């Protein structure tokens, strides 16, 4: 089993390497997006991973800020998960830039306060530094046996975590606002967009975390493990259902009386070429099956499977924010005014995009495996107050 995993991982990395090579040598020439559907798979992956990171981080705050005893053994795991998914997110958006080597400009010459993208970048830079500091202290705390020092360290962690909560909310809400403020795009331009991003972050982030605990936690035959699984299952279940509610709110309001400009993207999402991303990937595999499993089954394996489904299908939710928002002509007749593949409203990720996506996921998995080997994330050790 382990061997198979490593073989698959190496194949992923190699295939991904081909994509990265193509991207670095030919720029965006082999990409499937164009000047109409300007953002594609990589941007969807970016908001997907950023969501996972914010969600996992908010879970870690249950340990370090609210000091919920139940989770204290998994605090570090949540923090490292948040860190790794953030790295994946940044990789995805880095490959998406037209000029990758100018990325530093977002720090040296940000267009503040008007650009939401500049805000987002500054906020997640701060978040990244905070995450590093918090992870560092979390490990220090664990390897410390002096109770006075322990107390001081957990105070520090609590402070960092408390700063982290508004920061995580602000920066992920900011990613949502990046879309929400685009007033020329009626599908994105909704006050619900940032909230939708946040709830999605909690749903997908907590599912990722639950999946990792369910499958990799080493001390399996304990009452503690079972209890923790039940609580995690509840968090995932509630957040997935709440996310669905918000989705319904957005969709129903738009479709009921919306102008064609507003509803075209939604109709494409529901009944267009890629209807299965919404109905099969998201609704069936990402909501109905997991909700059924979480509500009726108590076994860690079932909970893990449900969470795995939520995590993997959530990329569909993210794709359905980015792509349908871009398939509507903003001026009637645009689609036929000048014909060129780059000016088409049709998008499917190219092989290079898929390969780079595989690379990013492989890097994330690799980082996790290495992290787990050296940092022993999935092994219980001392607790906070022992």
């Amino acid at each position, binding site marked *: 089993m382990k061997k198979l995993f490593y073989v698959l991982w190496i194949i992923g990395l190699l295939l991904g390497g081909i994509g990265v090579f193509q991207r670095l040598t030919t720029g965006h020439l082999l990409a499937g997006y*164009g000047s109409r559907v300007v*953002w594609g798979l990589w941007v969807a992956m970016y908001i997907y991973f950023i969501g996972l990171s914010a969600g996992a981080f908010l879970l870690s705050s249950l340990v370090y800020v609210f000091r919920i005893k139940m989770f204290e053994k998994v605090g570090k795991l949540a923090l490292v998960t948040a860190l790794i998914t953030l790295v994946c997110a940044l990789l995805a958006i880095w490959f998406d830039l*037209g000029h990758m080597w100018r990325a530093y400009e977002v720090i040296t010459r940000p267009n503040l306060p008007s650009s939401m993208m*500049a805000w987002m970048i500054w906020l997640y830079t701060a978040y990244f530094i905070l995450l590093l500091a918090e992870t560092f202290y979390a490990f220090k705390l664990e390897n410390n046996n002096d109770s006075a020092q322990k107390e001081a360290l957990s105070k520090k962690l609590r402070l960092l975590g408390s700063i982290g909560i508004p920061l995580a909310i602000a920066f992920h809400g900011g990613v949502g606002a990046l879309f929400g403020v*685009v007033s020329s795009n009626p599908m994105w331009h909704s006050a619900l967009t940032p909230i939708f991003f946040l709830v999605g972050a909690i749903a997908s982030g907590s599912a990722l975390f639950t999946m990792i605990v369910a499958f990799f936690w080493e001390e399996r035959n304990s009452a503690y493990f079972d209890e923790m699984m039940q609580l995690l299952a509840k968090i995932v279940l509630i957040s997935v259902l709440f996310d669905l509610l918000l989705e319904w709110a957005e969709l129903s309001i738009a479709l009921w009386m919306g102008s064609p400009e507003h509803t075209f993207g939604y109709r494409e999402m529901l009944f267009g070429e890629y209807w299965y991303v919404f109905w099969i990937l998201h609704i069936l595999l990402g909501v109905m099956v997991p909700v059924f499993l979480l509500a009726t089954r108590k076994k860690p394996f079932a909970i893990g499977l449900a969470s795995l489904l939520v995590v993997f299908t959530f990329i569909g939710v993210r794709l359905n924010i980015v792509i349908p928002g871009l398939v509507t002509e903003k*001026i009637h007749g645009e689609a036929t*005014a000048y014909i060129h593949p*780059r000016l088409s409203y049709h998008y499917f990720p190219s092989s290079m995009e898929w390969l780079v996506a595989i690379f990013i996921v492989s890097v994330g998995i690799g980082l996790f495996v290495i992290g787990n080997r050296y940092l022993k994330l999935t092994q219980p050790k001392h607790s906070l107050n022992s």
Partner: protein
Amino acid sequence: MDTPKKNSRREFLTKFSVAALAGATLSPLFSKEQDTESDAVEVRNFTESIESLLGGDYTNIKLKMQDDVRRALKKPVDQRRWGMAIDLRKCVGCNACTVACISENALPPGVVYRPVIKEEIGTYPNVSKRNLPKPCMHCEEPPCTEVCPVGATYKRKDGIVVVDYETCIGCRYCMTACPYEHRMFDFGEKYGDGLPFPAKYDERPSFEYEKEWKRDKPEESPIGNVRKCTFCLHRLEEGLLPQCLTTCIAGANYFGDLNDPDSVIAKIVSRLNVTVLKKEMGTKPKVYYII
């Protein structure tokens, strides 16, 4: 203290009533003259031809507009306000401007600054057609510049919205923000792609922003950048009209300094029946459509 105030009030009331009375009785005598005067100054005559509007004191309207441009160039840059008007009654939908623009700016495949949108009205075979050339609107309140994370795209002092190719990181956020879907991404495509030999015209540099831009390597600007219409800034600075204007076979385009009441463009925009696209967005386009 009280007396002068009272006095002045009474004085005012008396004067006012006398004037009102006089006005009421005498107004019919003056009204005619006043009307004719306002006719000439304020009331717009939407059916007026452009020739009569300009007073017929020109031989070639394009030369006159070129003079307007040169006159504007003598002013400091922040006092110029470049604007364009497109006569939808005259546009024949030939795409000459589209092609001229591609040639002038050496645009690669898939990048177009001035598509002409063609709208069919009615059902086949009983149809009529309308054409709408669509350059950048050079909005007075451009949403595209607001969103740029690095301030690479901005509105110049003369109102032209530009992209600094050497700063733009190619995030394409501005493209999503433009309500007119004007902006294009340069993917680095070449006309000769797929040919066994390189096509000569792919080697032609673009002279946008008065610099020389070649297309040799991927990710060398302008490849990997967002591109847009500049009102042919590089030509304007030399006192020439935008290329689309000089090529238009129908003479459907007008250009000049909106801040100069004597310019052709200012007269057209203030006197004829013009409109702008998506007025409700509040972007205040400086490209007007004569309808």
